[in-house]
């Protein structure tokens, strides 16, 4: 038969063991969590070091242009719903091409393609655009402009002017600034993106992603008729 004192001692030992077990589990979790965090940190450090191995090529600030935005920023393109930007005034972008020639977007009938040189979908689409421009292209009263945006000198196809040249594109380009102001002003979130602007400077159409080349003519005609 056990005495109450003995029972109390047994209970105290049990509690002590339980507390010890909890402390062990807590310590173990901290160790595992620490190891996990260290592994992720190591991966980030290796990534930074390996991606940072760049040569002496030009940087983003040397390629990016100066863009002045006149007008309200357009809302983002909604998924599967009517685009609220259609009918709104297009922001007027004033900047220049890679050679410093002044370039304006948003002040007349235009078919505009926003592209990033590193973007694989843009890389796949550019030759199709060049083909279209050399075979038919837009009507005379519609200007086709590409906006070179989202510059990244750590990725493929840098610098963008060489990328355009390699694809045989010799048309108009507006070079976006470091902050991608032109891209943001049009409410865009992905490249490539397409915008059709009417003669009166209204947005007629916006789309994210690649466009079926068969639609290039349709979009150019929309700009002409708008």
């Amino acid at each position, binding site marked *: 038969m056990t005495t109450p004192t003995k029972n109390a001692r047994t209970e105290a030992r049990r509690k002590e063991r339980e507390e010890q077990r909890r402390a062990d589990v807590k310590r173990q979790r901290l160790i*595992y969590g620490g190891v996990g965090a260290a592994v992720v940190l190591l*991966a980030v450090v290796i990534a930074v070091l390996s991606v940072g191995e760049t040569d002496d090529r030009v940087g983003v600030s040397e390629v990016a242009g100066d863009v002045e935005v006149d007008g309200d920023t357009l809302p983002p393109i909604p998924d599967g719903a009517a685009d609220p930007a259609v009918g709104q005034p297009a922001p007027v972008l004033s900047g220049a091409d890679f050679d410093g020639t002044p370039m304006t977007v948003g002040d007349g009938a235009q078919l505009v393609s926003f592209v990033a040189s590193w*973007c694989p979908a843009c890389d796949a689409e550019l030759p199709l655009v060049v083909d279209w421009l050399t075979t038919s292209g837009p009507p005379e009263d519609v200007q086709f402009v590409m906006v070179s945006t989202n510059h990244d000198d750590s990725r493929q196809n840098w610098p963008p002017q060489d990328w355009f040249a390699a694809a045989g594109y010799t048309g108009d380009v507006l070079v976006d600034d470091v902050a991608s102001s032109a891209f943001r002003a049009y409410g865009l979130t992905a490249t490539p993106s397409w915008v059709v602007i009417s003669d009166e400077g209204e947005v007629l159409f916006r789309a*994210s*992603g*690649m*466009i079926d080349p068969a639609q290039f003519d349709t979009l150019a005609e929309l700009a002409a008729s708008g």
Partner: protein
Amino acid sequence: MIAVAERTFGLLALLAILIAVVTTVALVRRRVPDWLRDDVALPLATAIAATATGGSLLLSEVAGYLPCTLCWYQRIAMYPLVIVLGVAVARGDRDVWRTVLPLTTIGSAVALWHIAIENNPAWGGPCEDAAPCTIIWVEEFGFLTLPTMALVAFVAISVLSLAARRP
């Protein structure tokens, strides 16, 4: 910044391959260590699912990569795993593999289909013109594309959830 993120995901995917192989060997030999079964397997599977989910959101919402239809199907299989496994970790549920495996099996099948299309662009796939299945947005170490990384994550999560079963 995005290039660093892609390389980090590539390195973590290599680590996940190693984890999947080692765990599979332990399962086949029926010698899953106690520390793996009791303490590590489920939290690690949760971390893999969370990293895959966070990575996919970073690449679409910050980097601006357009997810294709097959990417969305893989997301549908991956995103719930963060919740399912997170709850299992909190509750100490060792039978969570019964919920995890159907999701990872579907996700793996779609990822394999996507990888096949990436390697055979002529197949086209079910994607829309705006975001073709054939566009390879990321390719690390010459073979780790986004669906390949997703496949690695699905497989690693599967074997880890099996390793967490009761002995």
